[in-house]
């Protein structure tokens, strides 16, 4: 009973570890970029899962964190490549270019935004919370759209990626493995959190917030911490995405992106550790292949989503093994 749960994740993990080699073998190298993006979106969706699936916070503004992280990395990369002002201010260009500087910075800015907006929005609940998170994300969208130096609404192309000592990130396979490693690292962290007292309090806040308070636990601290962590990780995912595509634009902050992340969490399975990764894979491949058949695949996807919501709530993960859902 216990072992059955681990079969599919293990299989997927093995597949994931060997994917670049498999793709090489079948001559499908061009799919590596798609797979990498699936991992990155899986990371972002997993961070959303923390606050949405486990925490019950319907945040419709998660793409904003990705955008803040992405733009942080993107702007630094841009300045290094342009050889302009900022690299003069900082000790050396290579420092700016380093992932060890850019990515933590991306996470920090995203976490800071999460802290400030979280303090305001987490005091509300239900519909208020949803709309406020959406509004804040829109604010970020408009902010970056208005930055003409960085391409405004068109965005900017970057040439090359951040650097890490000892690894050649410009190599797509190396980059893939890095994303995989980061994803697994975060999932491990999430697992630890969920099974700790922290996770219990967070999930209890989702199930019955008044009762939790009546027991003596104030949900705000837990929710805000989860929110900041989720924001930081989404910021990292944003930085990774910008590196992967070597391009940054406000499109990644458009509110439909936030919606897509939610769809990934739902379709994959909420409050399941691997669910969102599954959802990301499915959604990205769907977009890629349905788009080949018809430009208007959305007209089918919309009703499909509605049907899933109305009739199939446990997601793909729940479908695959109708096991007991542990909180």
């Amino acid at each position, binding site marked *: 009973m216990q072992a059955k749960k681990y079969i599919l994740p293990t299989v997927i993990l093995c597949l994931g570890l060997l994917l670049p080699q498999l793709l090489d073998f079948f001559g499908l190298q061009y799919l590596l970029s798609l797979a990498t993006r699936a991992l990155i979106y899986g990371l972002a969706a997993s961070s959303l899962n923390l606050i*949405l699936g486990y925490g019950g916070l*319907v945040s*419709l503004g998660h793409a904003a964190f990705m955008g803040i992280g992405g733009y942080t990395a993107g702007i630094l990369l841009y300045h290094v490549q342009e050889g302009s002002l900022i690299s003069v201010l900082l000790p050396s260009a290579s420092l700016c270019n380093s992932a060890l500087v850019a990515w933590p910075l991306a996470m920090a800015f995203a976490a800071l935004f999460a802290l400030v907006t979280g303090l*305001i929005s987490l*005091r*509300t609940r*239900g*519909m*208020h919370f*949803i*709309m*406020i998170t*959406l*509004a*804040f994300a*829109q*604010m970020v969208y*408009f*902010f970056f*759209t*208005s*930055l*003409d*130096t960085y391409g405004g609404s068109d965005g900017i192309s970057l040439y090359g990626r951040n650097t890490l000592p000892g690894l050649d990130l410009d190599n797509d396979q190396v980059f893939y493995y890095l994303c995989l490693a980061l994803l697994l690292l975060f999932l491990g962290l999430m697992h630890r959190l969920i099974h700790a007292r922290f996770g219990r309090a967070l999930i209890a806040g989702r199930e019955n917030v008044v009762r939790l308070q009546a027991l003596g636990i104030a949900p705000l601290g837990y929710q805000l911490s989860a929110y900041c962590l989720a924001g930081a990780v989404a910021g990292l995912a944003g930085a990774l995405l910008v590196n992967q595509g070597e391009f940054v634009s406000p499109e990644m902050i458009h*509110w*439909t992106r936030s*919606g897509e992340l*939610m*769809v990934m969490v*739902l379709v994959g399975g909420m409050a399941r550790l691997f669910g969102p990764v599954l959802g990301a894979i499915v959604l990205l491949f769907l977009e890629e292949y349905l788009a080949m058949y018809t430009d*208007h695949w*959305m*007209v089918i*996807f*919309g*009703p*499909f*989503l*509605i049907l*899933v*919501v*109305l009739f199939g*709530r446990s997601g793909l993960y729940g479908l695959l093994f109708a096991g007991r859902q542990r909180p």
Partner: protein
Amino acid sequence: MLVFEQVLNGLQLGVMLFLMSAGLTLVFGIMRVINLAHGSFYMIGAYVAATVTARTGSFLLGLAAALPAAALAGMVVEFLILRRLYHRDHLDQVLATFGLIFFFNELTRMIWGRRPLFMEAPSWLSGSVPLFGGLQYPVYRLAVILVGILVALFLYLLFSRTRLGMQIRAGATNREMIGALGVNIPLLYTLIFGLGTLLAGLAGVMAGPLFAVEAGMGDSVLILTFVVIVIGGIGSVRGAFIGAILVGLVDTLARAFLPALFRLLLASPSSADRMGAALASMSVYIFMALVLSVKPAGLFPARE
């Protein structure tokens, strides 16, 4: 006089936001459903009006076609889909109505193509009139403001003088009670929803000559509508009115004057323009954050 002109522009935007948010705030407050697809009815109103107007040459016919179209579409959506979401949690509602947006946007592209439609203001509303101070203001925009005020008056009379209005108001404060009083709740909900989408459609029609008629036009208006509702208070039409006017004014005035203000403060005019423009686009949201920090439930919450 530039200020006065911008104030009028702000009122015009505010009035359109009011049309969007009046119905939606009721849906939020009474049926407690969060509906992301409200912008789609704005879009339907615009598209139907644009098409009929182009075919027949008459703006009034376009209007007459668009309003029932939006109302009917709304009621069908309510009947088929929204009804099943009333007792679901907000995530389900968000995702399902999100699916509706995808569907409507794509359907629109399929029927009308990707190019924006062109919609002309009717000739009897074109041109400008002189207002005091030598200002020439477009008749059409004045008409929009007028329509908005009339709708606000109509809603006020509806809520305070008619039985239907009373039932709606009662529903906003206590949903269970009106059921106990024998009101046909499913029908009431359908009507409320239809009223909301009709108003959204009206906003869409009026927006046609002012903004681009294209798929997805409802999405950005929707978010502003949300801001209005959050500021005004969920469930309160009065709050929606005041919130809408405030948001319309803040957005318009900020966009008009912040760059100029920054020019006074900063040496480089191009950075001033950029910073001013950036801040202006965020002004509404900052305003929302300020209001919320003082009044977390909005200015006129219908319920505590």
